[in-house]
């Protein structure tokens, strides 16, 4: 079932990104925040380019721009100068400082440097300075993302009165997902804090003036009072406890934690709505009962087009788990589930997701790169790839469709508008998959039917 692939020393076309990128995205989802990388100038610029190419939005990530001398004598002076300059130009409410492999290795004590900076420059106030350790030699962008969320929760919350709100820690979703999530919460009558929320900061309207910091994001005051919430709902089966903001809130303030999978597909969305219903004390709104009903109806209408089709699914562990769960529900056979992540919980979570649904157990591999995915895919004869745009070359090589989901989408417009979660997200995914299969058959047919 999970026969080990050959263990290569080298990595070719990685299926993961580095930690500070995830942290930058998370910080971008806080109102008034500027992400700041303590390291070489290149890190910030490369990540900006990578993120811009997906979201088609500006993202200013500041850098302490260390030079050779700083690498030898320490980056403290540059860190402080950088913070001063960012404060002066951007007037941020918060600066989210993530380290890089360089500054972790030279051993800069960021906590102490920030203490000094506050003494030297912030006597009259200034932005909140938040720090997170994100050396890219351990973990992927997802660990960086979660670490930043955890840091926000740890460093901003304080004991608070019970406030009846709900905390949602959704992990890395698309901008459309975040908007949909917030709509669901409102429709369920819940007052919720979604952290992070870059649905506007990374998908905003055309403007007359360049925004220093775009509008939107989770309010800092809301993060502060997460400690008084009646519950935390956190998505992600592979999220380790030390990186879990929900665990911290539970342990420190006794906020009960409900850990769910990413709500992709029918069962996971159902679980999410059950939790929401319990928290609100109200039944699931009619709008979503209808959406579920329409979804099921469409699955019936289209089931034959997808049944038994073989899929290779790859990307971030929790997204792959959610997608695999949905594929199993619609009768697609996932043949390979792969991720560059190495959380340790991936295999078990996939096995659980397909239990009782999939005809055969897929190959499940952590820590994979696209070279390995390609080698296995060639044997497994998939009908389609499901994942981000970096799998395009492999799918093209096998002459099968790539159905684009997740991050990054670098070869299409609208990556930020892809909807994955909830019944509406499942509906979009199903239509995409079913139509890709119909189209593949139609395009390869000699007759060229124009009628299904």
């Amino acid at each position, binding site marked *: 079932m999970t026969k080990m692939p050959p263990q290569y*020393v080298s*990595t070719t*076309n990685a299926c993961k990104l580095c930690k500070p990128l995830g942290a930058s995205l998370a910080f971008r989802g806080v109102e008034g925040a500027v992400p700041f990388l303590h390291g070489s100038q290149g890190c910030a610029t*490369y990540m900006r380019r990578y993120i811009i190419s997906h979201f088609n939005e500006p993202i200013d990530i500041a850098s302490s721009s260390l030079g050779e001398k700083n690498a030898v004598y320490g980056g403290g002076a540059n860190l402080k100068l950088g913070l001063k300059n960012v404060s002066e130009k951007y007037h941020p409410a918060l600066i989210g400082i993530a380290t890089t*492999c360089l500054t972790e290795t*030279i051993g800069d004590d960021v906590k102490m440097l920030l203490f000094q900076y506050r003494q030297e420059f912030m006597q009259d106030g200034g932005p909140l300075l938040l720090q997170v350790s994100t050396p890219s*030699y*351990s973990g992927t962008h997802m660990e960086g993302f979660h670490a930043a969320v955890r840091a926000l929760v740890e460093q901003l919350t304080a004991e608070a009165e019970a406030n009846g709100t709900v905390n949602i820690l959704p992990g890395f979703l698309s901008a459309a997902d975040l908007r949909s999530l917030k709509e669901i919460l409102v429709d369920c009558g819940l007052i919720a804090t979604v952290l992070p929320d870059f649905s506007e900061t990374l998908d905003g309207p055309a403007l*007359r003036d360049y925004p220093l910091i775009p509008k939107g994001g989770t309010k800092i005051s809301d993060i502060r009072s997460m400690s008084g919430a009646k519950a935390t709902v956190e998505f992600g089966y592979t999220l380790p406890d030390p990186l879990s903001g929900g665990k911290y809130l539970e342990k420190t303030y006794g906020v009960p934690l409900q850990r769910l999978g990413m709500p992709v597909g029918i069962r996971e969305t159902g679980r999410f709505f059950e939790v929401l219903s319990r928290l609100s004390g109200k039944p699931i709104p009619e709008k979503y009962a209808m959406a579920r009903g329409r979804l099921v109806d469409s699955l019936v209408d289209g089931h034959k087009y997808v049944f038994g089709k073989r899929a290779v699914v790859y990307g971030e562990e929790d997204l792959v788990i959610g997608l695999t769960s949905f594929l199993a529900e619609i009768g697609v056979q996932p043949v390979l589930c792969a991720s560059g992540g190495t959380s340790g919980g991936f295999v078990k979570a996939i096995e659980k997701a397909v239990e009782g649904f999939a005809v055969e157990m897929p190959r499940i591999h952590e820590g994979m790169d696209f070279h390995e995915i390609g080698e296995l895919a060639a044997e497994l004869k998939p009908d389609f790839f499901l994942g981000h745009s970096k799998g395009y070359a492999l799918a093209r090589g096998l002459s099968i469709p790539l159905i684009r989901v997740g991050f990054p989408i670098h070869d299409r417009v609208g990556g930020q508008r892809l909807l994955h979660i909830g019944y509406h997200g499942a509906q979009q995914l199903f239509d995409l998959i079913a139509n890709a299969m119909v189209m593949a058959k139609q395009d390869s047919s000699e007759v060229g039917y124009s009628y299904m």
Partner: protein
Amino acid sequence: MEAALQERQDSIHRTGEAPFAMDCNKDSLAGAVSQRACVFCGSRVVLYPIADALHLVHGPIGCAVYTWDIRGALSSGPELHRLSFSTDMQEIDVIFGGEKKLYNALIELIDRHAPKAAFVYSTCIVGIIGDDMQAVCRRVSEEKGIPVLPVQSEGFKGNKREGYKAACNAMRQLVGMGDTSGISKYSLNILGDFNLAGEIWLIREYFTRMGVEVVANITGDGRVGDIQRAHGAALNVVQCSGSTMDLARMMEEDYGIPSLRVSYFGVEDMAESLYAVAAFFKDEEMMRRTRELVKEELSLLMPELMRYRQALAGKRAAIYVGGAFKAFSLVKAFRTIGMQVVMVGSQTGTPEDYAELAEITDPGTIIVDDSNPLELSSFLQEKEVDIFVGGVKERPIAYKLGVAFCDHNHERKEMLAGFTGMLNFAREVYGSVMSPVWRFVPRKSEIVQEESSHD
């Protein structure tokens, strides 16, 4: 509010408004959100298009994964350059050293891909933990019988220019290894063209028509074997001078090969470059062929170009690119289509470059070194720019403000060099500037509303 930090004021000049001076070619200011990358980026840009070499990034995964297949550098044969190889260093490698992993990774990849050479890029962390890359490369080179070249590109060791130099140092070791017999006395190497969208094929065709043999492409559609015999050429023509001028200087030192600075962007510079090459070879017949070539190409190009010029005349353009040399050509190219350049800047220009820009631009033009989103957006607004030319990182600045954009960076898929490229450039500028979508963006919709209320 003033968009530029105090420390940045000396890196911004307005043509004609003060005696020329420019603070440039230094480390980026911390916290200024520079558009620059790092030393590694500089090296990677230059060597990337060598298509039959293995490019292994020694470091944690980020540096490799952010440079995976992001450039439009085409190859007519092998495509090894489009893969992203990394040692993906982990914590344990950082603690105990990454040499063993590097050695094993190199052996594995060379066995798998049989490259003609391997470039090994060092990243920040390798510089800190002190892996002896030279020793590993030497050992693998001896065992595998191919050149294995360390590229000293630790990100923090300066800016992009340092990376260019590191890349040139690596290539210097290749040059001179090959057999130069049979190379014509009318021969040259093309330096500093990266074959974006197939541009170098076009340029090679021009040289072939002139009767000049191209020995090595450095590095667009590049091959290790060609670079190894590049010292057999009579001349180096260097475009994108920032990146490969160092190699030209080294080759002049090592082999006495002279070099010419050229540019293939815009009709003026393209024609001038071809004439300069013909003049170098002092061959009347070649000069005649060159004149004919230019005439022929222009006659194909001009009628359509003039149509674009009519539509675009008087529009204002802003330029922010990696190297200043490209900016010179773009200023002229915009003039050819009747447009006015009101802002021009680069990431890596030298004082001489900026002095030349001040020379060729109109009074009031903003000239800027190592700029950032806040400055750039304020310039776009101040100068009421119609189109911004830059790369991926500049695009959202323009678009967010409702300004047209032309991608003139390494990611692009449009051929913008040569005579054909000038037409493509005009087409692209036209296609963005004339789009009706600008009528709906906040910047313009107010004007449109005003206009319609007058009707």
